[in-house]
């Protein structure tokens, strides 16, 4: 009996040890955050490409607005775009800005030809919308190349970043985001569709993709809070 209790206690300690933040991971995250904190706000012209099975949309010209620490808005000024709610998570400060969390290193992985350190983050506060996040960090340039963010309400988002001339402050030149979608199906007869013989879109794996290609950034000029309401 004593042996069993001892074994169980050891297992618990091991788990606890594994769960506790890895100082290396925390230090890496701090270095990356320092770089990303160079930007207080930005507005950027960008191309938005939507690739969702049930949405046929043209390439849109959008404006991305960001205000530290966690306000991000993608706006189509002249047209219509169905912006996934998870685009707020293309802002890395959503994850890097967490204060009450645990982080562990989880090996390495190559992302777009760059060897990245994998850091898993577990927010400890129940009030956080993020339940877990995995960052794939380029340790030499201190850039997040990929992130996988799970949220309470909006599902999981997988985001890949490419960097160009704004890599010095962590701003990407291209963001590719993948997310779960719900089936889109309206009751029969409500839309009186014209049957042109095209196969219907439903019944296939429901993952959506958006691609944001940044064309020009305007940094740290000040943006009003009212813009994000």
């Amino acid at each position, binding site marked *: 009996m004593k042996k069993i209790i001892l074994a169980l206690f050891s297992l618990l300690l091991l788990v606890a040890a594994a769960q506790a933040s890895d100082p290396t991971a925390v230090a890496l995250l701090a270095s990356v955050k320092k770089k990303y904190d160079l930007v207080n706000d930005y507005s950027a012209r960008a191309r938005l490409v939507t690739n969702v099975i049930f*949405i*046929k949309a*043209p390439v849109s010209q959008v404006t991305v607005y960001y205000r530290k620490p966690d306000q991000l808005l993608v706006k189509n000024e002249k047209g219509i775009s169905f*912006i996934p709610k998870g685009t707020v998570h293309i802002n890395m400060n959503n994850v890097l800005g967490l204060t009450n969390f645990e982080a562990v290193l989880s090996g390495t992985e190559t992302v777009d030809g760059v060897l990245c350190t994998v850091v898993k983050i577990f927010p400890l506060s129940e009030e956080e919308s993020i339940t877990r996040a995995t960052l794939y960090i380029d340790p030499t340039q201190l850039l997040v190349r990929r992130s996988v963010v799970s949220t309470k309400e909006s*599902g999981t988002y997988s985001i890949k970043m490419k960097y160009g001339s704004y890599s010095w402050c962590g701003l990407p030149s291209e963001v590719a985001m993948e997310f779960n979608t719900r089936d*889109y199906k*309206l009751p029969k007869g*409500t839309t*009186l569709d014209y049957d042109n013989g095209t196969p219907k879109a439903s019944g296939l794996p429901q993952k959506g993709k958006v691609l944001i290609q940044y064309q020009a950034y305007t940094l740290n000029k000040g943006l009003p809070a009212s813009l994000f309401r």
Partner: protein
Amino acid sequence: MMFFEVLRIELFKIFRRPRTFIAFGAIALIILLIQFALKVNGNEFILFFTDSQTDTFEIPFGGILNGYFVCVAVLHIILVHVPLLVALIAGDMIAGEANSGTLRMLATKSVTRTELVLAKFAASAVYVILLLLWMALFALVGSLLLFGANDLVVFKETDLHIISNTDVVWRFIAAFFFAALALIMIAALSVFLSVFAENSLGPIVATVCIVIVFTILQQLKVPVFEQTINPWSFTTHMLGWKGFFYVEKSADGVTIPGSIENPIALVKSGAILLGYITLFISAAVWAFRKKDILS
């Protein structure tokens, strides 16, 4: 050739009758009512189509509710309501004259029965075109003035299409042309039925009933009907105007500007409607030439 003379006379008679203007008034009223309803309840209307996606996407309600969207909503009334208005005039063309006794006055003149039927049908077609122009004025121009312009979102049963602002107007023009073809086919059906009746109520009611029955068959999506009746039913192809708002997308998921999803289907639908027009009018001419005018 008396055809054009008879056509002029028929158009004169159509537009001298007060009942003709009921249709124009009715269309204007229906459109204004729809515009008012959408102005007041537009977001709820859009929510009906987007409810399943509100957790995943930011729905741009304000942008979606624009003049082009409202115009497409208005054009839906074409299928059920405007055929009645078309039948009111076209169904009266021969049966109404038989009932009032004026048919025998026309038929004793030096105009052939073929010319008479063709001219009456052509006058109905002109009436349809004018009705649609009137509709375009209220539905498109009026909606743009009330709601402004933006990209057009078209909701289908299993997907939605977003068409850029700059790629929309030609589609509406094409859609109106196709709708004219569809309604001219209704006029042809009404004229055909009118040949066999001595009272215009019969052809008018029969036309509307036929449209309603075939629309129900088409929307029920019963497999046996989908394989046999629906591919040839004119109500299936009357919806072809909507096909101009279905865009093709490339492999990377982006719509191709200026494209139409499966344009061959539209050509086929147009050809079928033309075929029905030819069939109904040929049959009307044949029957009218043989008919003893006893009224």
